[in-house]
């Protein structure tokens, strides 16, 4: 319990409000659940404004698949909106089976990069 008159950040913020732009209520992060491809199953919280996924070391999320470009796709958070953009990858980005240059994303969308498949969860962690 916080003392009266003091500020306990954990208790003040937990699960109630978000004062950070773009963070859903309760501080839950949007997450990519990798369901297929090297390293699956695993989860990648989208904790920063821009997350680059690829097979190269320059990517924020590195996946060891020859079918991925070094910097394949970027996931962006802007306020409550989540989107992705293909970074001119060799094999493209498929959102729910459609080859997309860019897309606004929603809960449950499947995103395929080569042999890697993610399911997006808007606030899962």
């Amino acid at each position, binding site marked *: 319990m916080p003392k009266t008159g003091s500020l306990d950040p954990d208790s003040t913020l937990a699960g109630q409000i978000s004062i950070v732009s773009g963070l859903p209520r309760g501080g839950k992060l949007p997450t990519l659940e990798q369901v297929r491809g090297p390293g699956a199953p695993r989860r990648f919280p989208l904790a920063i404004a821009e997350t680059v996924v690829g097979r190269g070391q320059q990517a924020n999320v590195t996946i060891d698949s020859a079918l991925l470009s070094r910097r394949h796709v970027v996931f962006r958070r802007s306020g409550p909106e989540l*989107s992705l953009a293909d970074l001119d990858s060799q094999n493209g980005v498929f959102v*729910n*089976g*459609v080859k*997309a*240059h860019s*897309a*606004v994303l*929603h809960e449950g969308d499947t995103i395929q990069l080569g042999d890697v498949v993610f399911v997006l969860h808007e606030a899962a962690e």
Partner: protein
Amino acid sequence: MSEPSFVRFWGTRGSIPTPGHKTRRYGGNTSCVEIRHGDFELVCDGGTGLRELGLDLVQRGRPRVSAHLFFSHMHWDHIQGFPFFVPAYAKDSEIVVYDVEAGRPRVEELLHGQMRSEYFPVNFGDLGAEIRARTFEQNVVELGGVTVRSFEQAHPGKSFAYAFECGEKKIVYATDSELDLLLTNQDEAGEDPAALRRLPAALVAFVEGADLLIADGQYTDAEYPHKIGWGHARANTVADLAHQAGVKQCAVFHHDPLHSDDAVEQKIRAACDRLDARGSRTLLFGAREGLELKL
């Protein structure tokens, strides 16, 4: 290899804007599709999605917007975004509005009309951009690098489809068309819902070989009998048109305002199943706001 074209959906809803949590995935803004090809900014319809496009054009930092606007027709859900199209207020913008039929500049007149003081606080004449009308000649307009063809559709008051030939790519925008009134095998299609719904040869030729067909598929088969004459097609009929015309990708568009995201997905799944049953190579999906394709 020719320059790529980019197609982005800014509004995919039919009839009336439908915001809310039930329509987040496919979006609630009414018809607006952007086609970029080289320096060309081509806009299909000015529904409420046009507002979002205008804001995005400004955000892209384009100092001067030069846009070509093609209206399928002038019903509310295809023009309401125009008064909120920010580039129309910029003195250095240029907007060309196309009329398919010669004679009175109907399109421009109607854009004027919705900005009369009874309806909107800013008068059309006060817009800063240079706005001019241009008319198709014999259903074709050449933009120097892009050829646009028009095709008259079945809709109350008439509407037009447009085929954009951008280099080697063909994009067809065909919304607000009641395809089901045009079937050449009405009896067979009525008796057997699974039978291929045959469309007139001229329409199939207009769409033929498109890399992307964006087509009004507002209704399910079950809904359509209650909506005959309203000017919109069954999604399953759109699937049949796409298959007959050898379309590569087909985006079902102009979603019913009564449809939640789940309902749209059921409608799309049924149309995909129909294509699969024919062994079709057409990829069909539901057009949704914020999706951009590179062709």
